[in-house]
């Protein structure tokens, strides 16, 4: 007859205390409108948005690349809540439509049964505010999680004042909490040009737009507006370094990519805004086990779409930028062009992973981290080339060996550029480098926030260090002796070592 394993996960998860027919993650235009429409359709709807993001996370460049250029205003929770509400008229409509709206609430995971997992009583999304976490059941999950910033490294990028375009948009419009006054924009596509125009509109000085290619990339109309505002567009140039002081960036040094003999240009600025690309925020989809596909024209690793909004999971849908950003036909080539030029103009000692302080040389040399001391003779012979003779390049493997992308920012600042560097250094198409997996929690949350404060007895009663198999831990020489029973009685299935 069938036995019961008291230590297995079967029956351990309680049904969630909160449940909605529709849960929408992200209250941007796409998500908020979806929530309103679902509520008007008679559905019981929850709309969560992580804004206002806690100041501590902003300091970690989570979820966007704020680059240390948020003002102290972000520490005023009440003011930020008013800002977020005031900046998004759809939120009031959502309240009126009967949507349950939770601001300052992030979705750190989402879980459905599938291959290798059958233990969930129902599909759940993991939510958290600053004090606690909880699980919320759903029938339909709509992800409108937007996009985050593509960050690329150059000497001096690891100081306050180097940031991303989406973060600048957020600080200027959603929070009104941007600390910079004079910016240089890297990139000249539609994203970069609209970012420059927004900054000008907000009274920020735009010292220059820098383009690695030989002509501005964005629509002619935007180029004309930027030029009319007197902003120079330096084409065939790339940042070689940022100089700065205690408060971060003070100048950016630009070098020509077409004329090595020409003198570097140094421009005074307090902020260097990277507006080269956006990355669809697919973290929750990967945690869910939804199928992702590489599409350079849509911003890299994006959901495999079923129709316009469906995913490979029947009850999970995507809307807005997380479904793919319109990069255009050039696709990933544009980011590769930038990365190639930055590497050529830069220095192998440049930090690539800021959290773990991994240099470009250590990454491409597949060296162990500095805290393990000098590399051995054998390690000195190892590099990316040697590793690639063993098999196709895998970013997850290189992450574990070098620690690049293993830090507290959860690789938001280095995930894509490491892939670009691996692609360029091994002549591997970017599309052939497997996605480095996203893992829950997709926001870095404290142990005491994530902790299940209302854990059920079924979980604690059946908790064992390992598998709870008493015979596993009997000392070998005692197997088959009368000491066996005594050990089983004392140890249960536990070893505790």
């Amino acid at each position, binding site marked *: 007859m*069938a*036995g019961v*394993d008291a*230590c*297995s*996960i*079967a029956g*351990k998860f309680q049904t969630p205390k909160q449940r909605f027919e529709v849960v929408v993650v992200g209250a941007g235009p796409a998500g908020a*409108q*979806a929530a309103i429409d*679902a509520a008007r*359709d008679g559905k019981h709807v929850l709309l969560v948005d992580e804004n206002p993001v806690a100041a501590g996370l902003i300091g970690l460049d989570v979820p966007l690349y704020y680059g240390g250029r948020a003002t102290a205003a972000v520490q005023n929770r009440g003011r930020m809540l008013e800002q977020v509400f005031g900046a998004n008229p759809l939120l009031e409509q959502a309240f009126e439509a009967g949507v349950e709206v939770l601001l300052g609430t992030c979705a750190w*995971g989402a879980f459905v049964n599938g291959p*290798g*997992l*059958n*233990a*969930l009583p129902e*599909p*759940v999304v*993991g939510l958290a505010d600053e004090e606690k976490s909880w*699980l919320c059941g759903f029938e339909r999950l709509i992800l409108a999680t937007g996009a985050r910033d593509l960050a690329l490294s150059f000497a001096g990028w690891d100081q306050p004042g180097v940031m991303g375009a989406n973060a600048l948009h957020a600080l200027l419009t959603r929070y009104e909490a941007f600390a910079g006054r004079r910016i240089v924009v890297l990139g000249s596509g539609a994203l970069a040009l609209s970012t420059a125009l927004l900054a000008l509109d907000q009274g920020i000085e735009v010292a220059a737009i820098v383009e690695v290619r030989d002509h501005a990339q964005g629509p002619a109309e935007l180029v004309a507006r930027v030029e009319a505002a007197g902003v120079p567009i330096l084409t065939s140039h790339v940042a070689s370094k940022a100089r700065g002081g205690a408060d971060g960036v003070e100048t950016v040094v630009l070098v020509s990519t077409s004329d090595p003999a020409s003198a570097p240009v140094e421009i005074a600025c307090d902020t260097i805004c990277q507006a080269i690309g956006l990355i669809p925020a697919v973290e929750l989809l990967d*945690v869910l086990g939804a199928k992702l596909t590489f599409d350079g024209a849509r911003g890299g690793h994006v959901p495999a779409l079923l129709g316009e909004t469906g995913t490979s999971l*029947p*009850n999970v*849908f995507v809307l*807005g930028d997380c479904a793919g950003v319109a990069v255009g036909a050039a696709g990933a080539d544009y980011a590769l062009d930038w990365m190639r030029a930055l590497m050529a103009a830069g220095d192998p000692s440049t930090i690539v992973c800021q959290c773990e302080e991994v240099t470009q040389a250590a990454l491409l040399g597949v060296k162990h981290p500095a*805290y393990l001391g000098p590399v*051995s003779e*054998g*390690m000195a012979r190892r590099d990316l080339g040697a590793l690639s003779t063993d*098999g196709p390049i895998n970013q997850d*493997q290189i992450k*574990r060996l070098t*620690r690049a992308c293993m830090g507290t920012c959860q690789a938001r600042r280095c995930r894509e550029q490491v892939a670009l560097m691996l692609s360029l250094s091994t002549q591997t198409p970017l599309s052939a480098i497997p996605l480095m997996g996203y*893992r829950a*929690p997709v926001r*870095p949350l404290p*142990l*005491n926030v*994530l902790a*299940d*404060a209302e*854990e059920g007895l079924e*979980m604690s009663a059946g*908790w*064992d*260090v*390992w*598998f709870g*198999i008493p*015979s*596993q831990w*009997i*000392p*070998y020489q005692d197997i088959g002796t009368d000491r066996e029973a005594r050990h089983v009685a004392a*140890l249960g299935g*536990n*070893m505790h*070592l």
Partner: protein
Amino acid sequence: MSGTNGASVVVIGGGVTGLSAAWWLARSGVSVLVLDKGIVGWEASGRNGGGASHYHSPLFHEEQRLWPQMDGLLGYSTEYRRERIIVALTPEQLAHYQYVASMHREFGYRVDDLDARQVREAVPLAGDNAIGGIHVFFGGHANPQRTVQAYAWALQDLGGRIVQHAAVTGIKVEGGRATAVSTTRGEFGLDSLVVAAGPQSGMLLAPLGVDLPLAPARAEMIVTEPAPLMAIGGVDGNGLYGRQTLRGNLAYGGGPHEWIDVDETGPKARPSTPLLRNLSRRVAELLPKAAHLRVIRSWAGVVENTPDGRPVIERLASPENVTITTMSGVGFGLSPASGHAIRDLVLDGACSFADLEKLSLKRFAGLPADWRRERGWEPAVMQAGAAETTVPVAGPNVAE
């Protein structure tokens, strides 16, 4: 050996046990080839707690003898650190740990009992809820992925070969001996074969008439951002196993496992679950001064268990040139010693340093076919209303 691609010894499985065995064989001058369906150490070998203190095993003394030497022997860092402290929060936990300590002492190893004050002195992140503990002066912990790669590189440095992304499709037997292994990347001839393929080992051996009963399961861990380094990073207790890494991160696992099925290609996915909240709770209880630390990752790994949870390390009677091994979910820490044992079995026919008789497959003779069902070790049936059974619903009726 047959086939030009082969080697004197072919090892199926580039996990920590197979790689250690291959490295030991290469140290003896044997031509050796490791086949893996994916990347070395990609399953449980590279994603476990890293503990190296297994008093219950016949390989225990060899494990303890070898670990302090491994960085030097391999030529690459494993991040090995000696000693452990086990912190008790309840009288039951303390009694349990003290019982374990008494067994260690019987083996002749030093373990000190700690009172609450001594625990807090030795473990700066512990709190007032600690009532005592034990300090183990042997054992320790290492970095799993770094150690697996160290074995792989050390093996290559000795002239051994590793072929990754080569899934084994069959073992060729002629005249009562294994002669070659067929893979998705061709056939490899051999004089001797080592099967160390984790959960897949049973399926690979079945066509040879060898019944190796294994049940695969998924287990989970979490990791925090770095904390200031404690003098002894091997700290656990409170229902957890784990360690502080040399970088400072707290990496912990424990709690319920999920029985699953895998096929010859291995796990289809390794999802982690909301269990990370229950793990977070226990880490915050164990180390209250770290409760503010942010969790930055979780992950799951798939391990296999035999019916009694004990390893099988055995050279078969037939085919007599085949040595099989499963460490039944406890393989990482014992790997320096298990590799040595396998080397001895392959080359000499017997282990030179330990008796392995009680780990023979013959203990499972007469095991009923439905042994997994008897133990409740079968995968759960998909719950009603769960994702994959949901009837497709209409998409949201909105434009972007």
